[in-house]
């Protein structure tokens, strides 16, 4: 099984840019009902564990928060690769660097160009890690924060977002063509423009390369389904 965790991937944008490989066979929105805020680490931790982790992850230390393997669906698989997965294998230094530059941007000490360069550099690193993992493990999950990180400062800049979505679409196409495995694409939340900036919305995205028959699933609903894939694969 392959999971593409795409931070802030937004259904409207996927449709607008006609990203057929991201949409796959079934696609729709996820619900964040039960969550007070659209916090990245909380939502991914909830996705990995199948339960709402909001009260267990303090805001201040959220980026250092790490789940134990046995609390996640990864433990159901014999082998797994988790590329930069928040609350699990997050590349702390890369994300700390992005947050530092974000802060510097609001302090008027840097430009969006410098920030974008670092985000794209980190993205390329994750892309290499993901494609090196495919075919090696029973479950591969790759996390990409490109749409979120670029979107926060440039969601209202169409040419930048078009480039972001084209890149994510390309990754989805390569993943789908490289394996017949079950491919799940999922985001933690959506995004909307605030002038040239981008703000989180409560509309997450999911898609699968097979019919699941889901209707506005919660982000925590995928846990059981992913574990059942592990059981099928082991029999």
């Amino acid at each position, binding site marked *: 099984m392959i999971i593409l965790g795409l931070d802030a991937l937004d259904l409207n944008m996927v449709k607008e840019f006609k990203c057929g490989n991201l949409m796959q066979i079934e696609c729709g929105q996820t619900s964040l009902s039960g969550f*007070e*805020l*659209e*916090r*990245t*680490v909380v939502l991914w931790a909830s996705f990995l564990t199948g339960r709402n982790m909001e009260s267990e992850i303090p*805001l*201040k230390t*959220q*980026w250092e928060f790490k789940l134990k393997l046995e609390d996640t669906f990864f433990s159901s698989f014999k082998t797994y690769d988790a590329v930069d997965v928040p609350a699990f294998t997050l590349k702390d230094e890369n994300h700390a660097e992005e*947050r530092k530059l*974000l*802060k*510097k941007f*609001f*302090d*008027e*000490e840097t430009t969006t160009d410098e920030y974008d360069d670092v985000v794209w550099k980190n993205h390329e690193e994750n892309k290499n890690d993901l494609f090196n993992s495919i075919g090696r493990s029973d479950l591969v999950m790759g996390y990409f924060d490109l749409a979120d990180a670029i979107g*926060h400062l440039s969601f209202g800049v169409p040419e930048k977002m078009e480039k972001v979505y084209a890149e994510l679409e390309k990754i989805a196409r390569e993943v789908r063509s490289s394996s017949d495995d079950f491919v799940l694409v999922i985001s933690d939340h959506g995004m909307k423009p*605030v*002038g*040239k*900036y981008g*703000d*989180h919305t409560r509309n997450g995205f999911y898609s699968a390369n097979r019919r699941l028959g889901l209707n506005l699933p919660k982000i925590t609903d995928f846990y059981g389904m992913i574990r059942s894939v592990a059981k099928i694969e082991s029999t």
Partner: protein
Amino acid sequence: MEDYLTNLERKSISLIREARAQFKNLGVLWSTGKDSTANVWLCKKAFFGKVPFPVIHIDTGRKFPEIYEFRNKVAEEWNLDLVIAKNEEALKNGMSPEKGKLDCCTQLKTEALKSLIREREFDALLLAIRRDEHGIRAKERYFSPRDEEFRWQYADQPAEMWDLYVKPSEDFSHMRVHPILHWTELDVWQYVQREGLPINPLYFAKDGKRYRSLGCMPCTVPIPSNASTIDEIVEELAATKTPERAGRAQDKERAYMMQKLRSLGYM
């Protein structure tokens, strides 16, 4: 029929008295700007000439000399219980905007106030913010709870219908009360004019420039203007359709995003 300014004043005084009745240890923030000076004046009027709680000035050590001069003069004339919040340690360590504007504001304003709140056990503060200042403030309520980290749950606020406000609770660290939330910039200046309130001279034009809002020296810039009296400022504002932060439309979005990214833990 009462005039417009009297109606505004009556609502504000009612909010101040409500705050005083609800909370044991109230304080009022005073930057010495026009809004907070009008707010302190309303507190004075609400309690028949004497502000019965501390008046807090956050001293960043980076303010204009005119601000300190004005503060000391008015505090004496109005017989205020002036309390200074100052982060001496950050200043000693050389904190300044060059080290990052966000960090500077956090250390010299937020941390200074946090520490004073802890020390003096304030359970509510009166602040002179207005809804028309920028987008994020338009979401505020008259009674607005904060946690220990000053976080504000703007997505979870009551509607405040029929003058019903959030009550004291252990669920939050302190309450922010905003008596002039419903005023506009012009309302404040007309009120200053009507009541004959003292005003910091930095607001008056000199050589074709004046300050429209007052802050720390390194981060505050004057606007082009020839208004050198209160009457002329009122006239200038009444004639313009341009809002207080005119020409800084992006600032509203920027301020909103900064607040949002902070609340999500990005910064």
